[in-house]
């Protein structure tokens, strides 16, 4: 099946700093989503982005499908950005999302 790798696995930032999270995948995809899991376990959709670029406030994401990667940018980070960020992809074969291992982000005040 499709492989999804995220980097870095862990990231510590000072409040106000910017960061880039990366997601590499092994095959062509027709669905790619970024999620944020808060400290209480809730997974929140950030972006549905199988290709192109999207922005939502301080967050933006870019997927370059031909090169099989996606990037999530966090600007002016806040302590509430802490948690785990997951990239998940769906290959052309069906309805199942495959999740990466996540990037655990801690933003310090």
């Amino acid at each position: 099946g499709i492989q999804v790798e995220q980097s870095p696995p862990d990231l510590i930032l000072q409040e106000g700093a910017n960061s880039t999270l990366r997601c590499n995948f092994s095959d062509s995809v027709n669905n790619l989503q970024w999620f944020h899991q808060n400290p209480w376990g809730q997974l929140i959709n950030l972006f549905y982005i199988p290709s192109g670029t999207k922005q939502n406030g301080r967050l933006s994401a870019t997927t370059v499908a031909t090169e099989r990667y996606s990037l999530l940018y966090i600007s002016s980070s806040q302590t509430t950005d802490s948690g785990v960020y997951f990239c998940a992809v769906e290959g052309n074969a069906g309805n199942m999302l495959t999740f990466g291992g996540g990037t655990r982000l801690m933003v310090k005040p």
Partner: protein
Amino acid sequence: DVKVTQSSRYLVKRTGEKVFLECVQDMDHENMFWYRQDPGLGLRLIYFSYDVKMKEKGDIPEGYSVSREKKERFSLILESASTNQTSMYLCASSPRLNIQYFGAGTRLSVL
């Protein structure tokens, strides 16, 4: 807003018990999913359903079964709970071939 509701946030059960985890969505989504999340292993798909009474195995279906008698409800069943099924269980739903929306999760401990 899409709402996916899992019946319990925390659950403690004994080995050998039959356990039901319930998930309800209010957006008439065709697809529903059950995942488990474990440290170091990420999220893994147990089962999914693309229609009422339809189900497909995910990556780790062993020890689990599911039921979807109504479109809005998808149940995960542990026929005889074991300690290695202690985990965080997450339910999700999606319109066909689209964004998945997750419930708040159920932390299950099997003693």
